[in-house]
């Protein structure tokens, strides 16, 4: 079943038994990078393969760094597909406004801590929006869609991560955006300590440049 048709990839929800092994239960998510006709096949192949591999690696490295992500079951470099765990839960986008003040602060702090862990491990997500986060019934927050992510320890890229999340909050959760972002920053500081300040400052500076705008909704859950 097609969940989401993106600019770069299609996302499908399939039975585990159909994709991986007939003895398996439940569902899996399949992310398939689409061939682009505008570029020559040689380049298209290189790009899709590298990005598929990179995203799979980011998903596992993030998990190792203490950030919940879907388990990667299979990386198919011929079909340019990643088969991964289906996370049962709800997009943070759909619950954030409905939570009580205390719960919301807790959730946002968790998000901030997880961003800090990613950054500390040398990664950036590249597309932090509340649609790319899934909260399950235990309150665990999963980061998904690392399609624009990378290994980049620069303050600039980290600042962009924070800034994009802020923009996403402002556009979708405008009533509570300021307190939500403040809680994210509190969690980020708590986890990173002094190193957080430089990134937070950079995020502010990026905002003053006024060039980045919140990206499309691209989550698949």
């Amino acid at each position, binding site marked *: 079943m097609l969940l989401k048709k993106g600019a770069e990839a299609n996302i499908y929800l399939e039975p585990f038994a159909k994709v991986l092994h007939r003895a398996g239960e439940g569902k899996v998510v399949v992310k398939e990078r689409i061939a682009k006709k*505008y570029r*020559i096949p040689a*380049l298209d192949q290189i790009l899709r393969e590298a990005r598929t591999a990179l995203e799979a690696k980011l998903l596992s490295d993030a998990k190792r760094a203490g950030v919940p992500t879907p388990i990667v079951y299979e990386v198919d470099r011929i079909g340019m597909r990643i088969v991964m765990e289906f996370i049962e839960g709800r997009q943070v986008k759909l619950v954030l406004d409905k939570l009580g003040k205390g719960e919301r602060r807790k959730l946002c702090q968790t998000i901030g801590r997880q961003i800090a862990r990613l950054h500390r491990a040398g990664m950036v997500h590249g597309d932090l929006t509340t649609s790319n986060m899934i909260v399950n019934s235990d309150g665990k927050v999963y980061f998904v869609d690392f399609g624009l992510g990378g290994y980049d320890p620069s303050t600039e890229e980290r600042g962009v991560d924070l800034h994009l999340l802020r923009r996403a909050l402002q556009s979708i959760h405008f009533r509570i955006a300021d307190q939500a972002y403040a809680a994210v920053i509190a969690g980020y500081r708590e986890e990173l300590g002094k190193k957080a300040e430089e990134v937070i400052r950079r995020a502010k500076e990026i905002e003053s440049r006024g*060039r*980045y*705008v919140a990206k499309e909704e691209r989550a698949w859950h």
Partner: protein
Amino acid sequence: MGVSGNGISSGGHRFGIGDSLMICLGIEGTAHTFGIGIVDSTGRVLANATRTYFPEQGGIHPREAAQFHAAQARAVLDEALKTAQIELGDVDLVAFSQGPGLGPVLRTAATAARALAVWLGVPIIGVNHCVAHIEIGRLTEGARDPVTLYVSGGNTQVIAFDAGRYRVFGETIDIPIGNCLDAFAREVGIPHPGGPAVERLAREGRNYIPLPYVVKGMDLSFSGLMTEAVRRYREGADIKDLCYSLQETAFAALVEVTERAVAHTEKREVMLTGGVAANNRLREMLKQMAEEHRAKFFVPPKEFCGDQGAMIAWNGILAYRSGYRQSLRETEVRQRWRTDEVEVTWRRS
């Protein structure tokens, strides 16, 4: 060098009956080209005279370019007036390229504009060069609200209108694509302008040589690509294959960032403009992407893709008619004037 007065009239840009016809003289001077365009308020381009400075060797030298512009200004003005068949006294408004661009070059155009405006006793308006490229494309092509890929020797941006401004949805973090192609050509001994020669050679390339493809989120980077292509040339790679690979790599990155902007904004139009818009392979790729998104694809005629004064004049009219005014003091040039800093007083959506 080109001159024209081809009388393109606009479909959707007529103003209210109460507005009298107005003639604007626009002066362009940001890089190689000095241009004077004359446009009336119905969107008719009456003249669009240009002179382009070619450095004898190496890249553009700002002061030399400025001297060239100053020396050519009078001839270009005479030519524009003659083509438009008007007298200087018929001009109601003077517009000029206030930025972004090379300092000495911008100041030359600005000085000419101030002198003319003061002498004629008419208002003066400074226009953003990048925004003017979009506005002339909207005028001549009838595009209403495109995602624009603006590619030239000095600029590389993906621009779309959103919440009252022209927002930058992607841009180069180092050298512009036109500069990348020209600099590569120069390094391998192809004379200026290198772009068209690279395109011709690329058509005969067969083997793709992998080169650095750098898209970071919405940002593009071409300096590593250029350096690597030159390095491969020195190692003895076939020049045709290299030109082919250079174009394919750079253009795929441009199209990908434009595609993201299209997906994000959900706009139904894509426009390609700037000097590099002359490249047929880039056109073909962008057109294909646009079709996949069921978006209309526009490329203004070559004359209106390159730098010229008509776009400055037309943007001057748009700004003036929307009530925008500038004092002489406010006409100081802005070398780094960003597209998203421009107050777009003439557009609501």
